[in-house]
C-alpha cells in the first residue's frame, strides 16, 4: 500500500507516459492520465497545480521497496527450501490440463461454493495466479523499478536497455503495478466471498478450523 500510494503521488508530478529512452513535456506521449499535476510545467489542461508531495513519497517508496525486496527474498528462499512452491503452488499433475482449468472456471461461473477439499489446498487457477504474482509480476515490478535508477543503470546498463529505454521502463513499471492491483482486488474479493474470518485465521495462524469447530 505504501508503494502504491507513494508511487501514485510520484506519478502526479508528471502524469504523462512515453515509450523509448526519453520523454518530457515538450515531446509526444504514449498516453496521459487526465488528472491535474503537482508541477506547473506539465500541460494538463487544468488551471491549477496540486501541492508537491514528491519528497516524502520518494523516501517512503524506496524504503518500502527495500522492505518488499528483503521480505520477498526471504519468502522465495523459504519457499524453495521447504518445497512450498512445489507442493502447494505448482498445479498438481492431474490438474495440468485445460479441462481442469475449465472445470474450475465453470464452477466459479455457476457461483458454486468451494468444496471441502479447497479448504486446505489451492485450485489450479489460484495456483497459477499465485505463481504468476510471485515469479513474474513481482520480479518485473522490481526490475522495471531498478531500471529507473540512474546509479543502478550505470552499474548494469542492460537492465534498462533490454526494456527499450528509460521511459519504456517507467511505463512498464506503471502497467505491472496495475496488474498487481487487479490481482489484489480479486484476491481480497475472493477471500471475502469464501468466508473472511476463517480465511484470515488461516492466513495468519497457518491452520484452518475444521467443520466441528465452526459455530
Amino acid at each position, binding site marked *: 500500500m505504501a508503494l502504491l500510494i507513494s508511487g501514485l503521488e*510520484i*506519478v502526479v*508530478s*508528471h502524469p*504523462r507516459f512515453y515509450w523509448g*529512452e*526519453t*520523454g*518530457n*513535456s*515538450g*515531446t509526444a506521449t504514449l498516453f496521459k492520465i487526465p488528472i491535474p499535476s503537482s*508541477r*506547473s*510545467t506539465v500541460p494538463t489542461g487544468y488551471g491549477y497545480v496540486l501541492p508537491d508531495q*514528491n*519528497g*516524502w513519497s*520518494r*523516501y*517512503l517508496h*524506496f*524504503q*518500502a*521497496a*527495500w522492505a518488499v525486496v528483503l521480505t520477498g527474498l*526471504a519468502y522465495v528462499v523459504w519457499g524453495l527450501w521447504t518445497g512450498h512452491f512445489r507442493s502447494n503452488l505448482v498445479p498438481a499433475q492431474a490438474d495440468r490440463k485445460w479441462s481442469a482449468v475449465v472445470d474450475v472456471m465453470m464452477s466459479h461461473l455457476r457461483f458454486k461454493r468451494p468444496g471441502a477439499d479447497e479448504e486446505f489446498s489451492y485450485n489450479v487457477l489460484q495456483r497459477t495466479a499465485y505463481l504468476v504474482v510471485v515469479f513474474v509480476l513481482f520480479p518485473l515490478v522490481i526490475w522495471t523499478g531498478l531500471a*529507473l*535508477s*540512474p*546509479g*543502478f*543503470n*550505470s*552499474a*548494469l*546498463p542492460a537492465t*534498462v*536497455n533490454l526494456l527499450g529505454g*528509460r*521511459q519504456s521502463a*517507467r511505463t512498464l513499471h506503471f502497467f505491472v503495478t496495475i496488474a498487481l492491483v487487479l490481482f489484489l482486488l480479486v484476491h481480497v474479493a475472493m477471500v471475502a466471498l469464501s468466508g473472511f474470518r476463517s480465511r484470515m485465521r488461516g492466513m495468519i*495462524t*497457518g*491452520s484452518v478450523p475444521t467443520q466441528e469447530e465452526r459455530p
Partner: protein
Amino acid sequence: MSKISRRAFVTTGFAAAGVAGLAAGAGLAKRYGLIPPDGGGIWGPGETLTYATQRLITTHSMAREFPRSMISEKPFANELAPLGNEFERHKSAGFADWRLAVDGMVAQPASLSLVDLKKFRASSQITEVVCEEGWSYVAEWIGAPLSEVLKTCGASPQARYVVYYSIQPDWWESIDMADALHPQTILAYGMNDGDLPVGFGGPLRLRVPRQLGYKSVKFITRLTVTDSLKSFGKGLGSASPEAGYAWYAGI
C-alpha cells in the same frame, strides 16, 4: 501446540538474526562512510541501504552514453525562478566576469573564470538528464572534469565531500568524493556544440550524470571541499533534504 512453538521459535530466531544483522550492518556502514548525511530519522534505513549498496556496486560504473543520433530535439528546460539582478548583470556582460570560487580543504584556493575553466581538458559526454518527476532528455555536455579542477587546486586526501553553490539564493548541493572524482562529473559550460544556454544552467552547471537532475545544479559560483557536512546548513548534506528530498539521488 508443538507446531506453534516451532513457529514461534523460528520467528524469534529470524527476528533476532534480523536485529543483529541490522546492528552489524549499521556499524559497518558507519565505519566505511556509507551512511548518507540525511541518514538519520525515519527514512534513514532505506536511504542508508540504497546509498551503501550503490557505493558498493557503482565503484567504477559509468553513466550510459548515447549516440549523437539520440540527442533530444526537444530538451526540456525546467522552470526557473527569477535569477536576480546579479545574474542579469553577468548575463548582459556575456558572463565575462563569472567566477567559480574553489575553497575549503584545498592547498591553493582559486577563483576561476570561464576562460580559465576552458583551459582544462574539455570533456564531452552524451548523457541523459533524468528528473525525479519522471521526464528525461539526452544532450551533449561539454566541460572541465571536476576531478582535474580539484587536483589543480590541491584538494586534500582527507576530503570526503564537495559542496557546490548556485547563484540562486539558498540553493546548494553536495556530492561525495566517489562522484566528485568520477570521470563523468564535469563543470559544464557547453551543450550540444554551443554555449550552455541559461535555461539549462548556463554559464556553468555541475553535471553529475549518475544521479537525478536535481544534483546537477545550475549557475555554479562556488565549490567548497570538506571532510564533514555537519556545519553546512542543517547538516543534512544539502538544500534538498531540507526541502524534503533525498541527499543521495542515484536511487
